[in-house]
């Protein structure tokens, strides 16, 4: 499909691939921080069983 265009841009893709992957990791950390660690009371209440059943520290 995109083989030829990918092959011609290999060095650029390598550098930006790491950056994009790092951004994905950061996004993942933010999601887990929200569901597992946020102190907002309503979020805690909604995520209560998820937190306990996942072994996250809770109240």
């Amino acid at each position: 499909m995109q083989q030829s265009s990918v092959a011609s841009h290999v060095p650029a893709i390598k550098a930006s691939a790491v950056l994009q992957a790092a951004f994905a990791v950061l996004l993942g950390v933010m999601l887990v921080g929200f569901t597992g660690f946020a102190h907002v009371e309503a979020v805690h209440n909604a995520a209560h069983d998820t937190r306990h059943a996942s072994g996250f520290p809770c109240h």
Partner: protein
Amino acid sequence: MSVFRSIVFTAAAAGLLVGLTVTGLQQVRAVPLILKAEVYEQKAEAAPAAPAALAPHAHEPGVAPHSHAESAAPHEHGAAWQPAEGFQRNAFTALFNVVTWIGFGLGLAGLMVIARRPATWREGLIWGLGGFAALTLAPSIGLPPELPGMPAADVVARQFWWVGAALSTAMGLGLIALTRAPLPCIAGALLLVAPHLVGAPQPPTAESAVPDAMARDFVTAVMVSAFVSWALLGALTGFFLNRFRGSESEA
């Protein structure tokens, strides 16, 4: 497909499947135990002046005077919104499980790409087991999964140690698995043991509103469902990453 998009699609697909699977697994054992523990918790809450809770008691010498009202207080939900019992509560649990596992999937897939590992379900499975070691096993050594109503140290202190143990274990495993020089491997081994040498914040009292047998059952239930979930997330992440990135994965 861009690298970022392929990781997001991978994490969304794997996280959705694992999040729903773990929701099902939790309904078997962990959630019924939480509901049962809340009955004990509310009983303790309803009887704050009960002799057992407030009776004068002897401490070993050296224990500072302290207020049990604070240390043993059941958690206050106050006036904040909370989901209605039954369907709504379980629906939110499912939603938060899915979001959590999409988050884990983003981390796992992102790190596999950064480490330039082949995108296969086999490779993914190994990474998933690493995720289990770092984000379930290591934190649970110091802070076993807790039921509502169990005594526990300050929540911020526990969260701090939990995150530290997870990060330290993840970096330790990464250094040992991905490097060959002796120095990084020694550093990796030290990172694996460091959180446990520091030690987790411990509960201020051993008195628990919840029977020990239930607490033990709960730890087993959480570990089993987390183990299955991490193994599944790893394998699915490798599989979907291969699908969405295809031959680009070596680039």
